[in-house]
């Protein structure tokens, strides 16, 4: 087993792919995206807006006044029949055209027309930022106009109250308790958790399975398998050595991943942590125990299955393509559960999820969160049965000559005699 770990950790493929990449990818991703975000913000900090005022009323002047006082807007006046060309010549990102009759409509209590032209320069994220800023500016203008109109026609009314007549005090009811936190904040923290759990499990499973699926193929490729199988070591021990070795490498990978991810979160996304005050969102110890058991069982059966499938490959490359067979049943539950609860899915998908043994730790992660222990426990029972089945098949396979000759099924003529 020590040999397994030494070999795996010293393998540059494992070291780079499983440990270094997750450690570096997040800081790198964070660094790059923050550079990109900074330049996008720079762009947002000064948007050149061209105003074509063909109305020349007190209301269109108000629009101009509000716009010119906005900190992120550089206002450019454009006139004449060639207003579009002029605006573009002045490098405007947006053109607001107020046609004749705008002020007249407003003073009659009607709605006034305004034309907005946005110059799309690139198809990047910063473009939507520009549009967001523009629609923010327009709604601000809208409110300013409403305030002026209300002030003019109903001097006794408080314009702010008329525009916002409701004061909403929102609270959340969770597990029968009223929690003094708005539901959107409460739910967003819950969603963050239920979103990240399946992803984390997906990553752990994929990494562990990848290591396992190639481990027999590596022995075949390096021609060490035959020797290994004639040593005075029980075949079951060989199997477990590989299972434990893959799990340890997976655990290292998870640590590297978590380290990289939390660095990314802390340095590049200093988002305010939402912790719903008073709500018992924390999972009790037994919850974690149930979760750990569920994940452990799934991992063992997954690794045994990966070893079995991988044993059919002649070399590492074909083992990696066989990995696709295992990847799909891990990916399906991870993606379904990231976006929906099991109960919200159509019956067919629900059955599919419960049948795939690797869904259960992901389902458990959500269930434990809301205090449901029956579902995870049933899942554990199902996984115990599945694990026993896979392990007994794997043990049988490892004790037979198939572990040496499995490839013969694909290419019988290649057997050396």
């Amino acid at each position, binding site marked *: 087993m*020590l*040999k397994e770990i*030494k*070999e795996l950790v*010293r*393998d540059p493929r494992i070291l780079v792919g499983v440990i270094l990449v997750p450690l570096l990818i997040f800081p790198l991703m964070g660094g790059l995206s923050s550079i990109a975000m900074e330049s996008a913000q720079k762009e947002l900090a000064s948007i050149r807006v061209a105003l074509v005022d063909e109305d020349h009323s007190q209301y269109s002047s108000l629009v101009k006044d509000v716009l010119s006082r906005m900190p992120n807007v550089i206002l450019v006046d454009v006139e004449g029949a060639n207003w579009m060309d002029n605006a573009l010549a002045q490098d405007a990102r947006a053109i607001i055209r107020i046609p004749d009759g705008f002020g007249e409509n407003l003073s009659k209590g009607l709605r006034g027309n305004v034309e907005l032209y946005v110059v799309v320069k690139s198809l990047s994220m910063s473009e939507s930022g520009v549009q967001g800023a523009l629609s923010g500016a327009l709604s601000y203008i809208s409110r300013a106009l409403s305030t002026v109109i209300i002030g003019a026609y109903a001097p006794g009314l408080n314009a702010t109250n008329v525009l916002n007549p409701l004061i909403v005090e929102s609270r959340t009811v969770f597990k029968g308790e009223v929690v003094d936190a708005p539901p959107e904040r409460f739910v967003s923290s819950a969603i963050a958790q239920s979103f990240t759990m399946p992803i984390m499990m997906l990553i752990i499973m994929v990494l562990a399975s990848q290591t396992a699926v190639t481990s027999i193929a590596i022995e075949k490729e*390096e*021609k*060490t398998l*035959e*020797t290994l*199988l*004639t*040593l*005075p*070591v*029980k075949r079951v021990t060989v199997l477990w050595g590989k299972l434990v070795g893959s799990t340890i490498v997976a655990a290292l990978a998870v640590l590297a991943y978590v380290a990289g991810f939390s660095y990314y979160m802390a340095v590049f996304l200093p988002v305010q942590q939402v912790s719903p005050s008073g709500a018992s969102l924390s999972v009790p110890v037994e919850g974690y125990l149930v979760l750990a058991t569920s994940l452990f069982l799934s991992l063992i059966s997954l690794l045994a299955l990966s070893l079995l499938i991988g044993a059919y490959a002649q070399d590492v490359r074909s083992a990696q393509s066989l990995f696709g067979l295992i990847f799909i049943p891990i990916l399906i539950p991870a993606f379904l559960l990231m976006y929906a609860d099991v109960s919200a899915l159509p019956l067919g998908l629900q059955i599919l999820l419960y049948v795939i043994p690797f869904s259960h730790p992901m389902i458990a992660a959500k269930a434990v969160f809301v205090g449901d222990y029956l579902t995870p426990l049933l899942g554990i029972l199902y996984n115990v049965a599945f694990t026993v089945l896979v392990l007994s098949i794997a043990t049988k396979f490892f004790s*037979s*000559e198939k572990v*040496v*000759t499995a490839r*013969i099924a694909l290419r*019988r003529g290649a*057997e*050396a*005699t």
Partner: protein
Amino acid sequence: MKVNARPERPKRKDFNRLSSRVIPGLMAVRVSNLVKYFGKKMVLKGISFNVERGEVFGLIGPNGAGKTTMLRILATLLVPSSGVVEVFGLDVVKDAEEVRRIISYLPEEAGVYPRLTGLEYLEFMASLYAKDEEELRKIIDEGLRIAGLGDRIRDRTSTYSKGMRRRLLLARVLMVRPKLAILDEPTSGLDVLHAHHVRRMIREYAKQRGLTVVLSSHNMLEVEFLCDKVALIHDGRIVAEGSPRELKEAYGAENLEEVFAKVARIG
């Protein structure tokens, strides 16, 4: 072909006693009417032979004759389709685990773990056999002597030449003092010096320490030098068997190469 009457197979619990005691009359290897299929293709077609204790037994024959399959069955990697194969009275199928404790197998294209050093490799292999620290040290020291790689033993095996890897593998096979060494083409592809070293070690362990060896080889000089007895396999059958001298006399040949050529033509 002479086939000995089957000796009584020792019980499992007697095994440890057996491995340290010489039981008179017990054959090292007994193969009787062995048949092996791969799918529908019959690769071994009823092979029978015996190997005495302390004997060096050579399997020779053209490529594809079934030599490697024969050795892999002896090494418990493959299972016979029918027939009996016993190693020191233990059945290679029913008693596979016990057989693995007294054999040491060197596959033709064996590799070593490339990310371990030569020394770590020997230490790992020795740890599977040693009962205590003292025995472990003894096995490793013996392995170091057999490999004869000097300071290079502390380098990763990925930096070794083919000859050095083969010497390390031979050290692994012999240092654990097996009762039977199964060597598939022990010197194939090696230069003269490495091949000489490997042959010298095999001979030393066979002659001085009573090791039983079953080997396959394409090098007829090597076979004449090492083997007490030779079996010629052709198309899954043993077509001739005897000491190198007997075979040369029987076929009126100058050397084993001629015997081989005549037999192969007949086949």
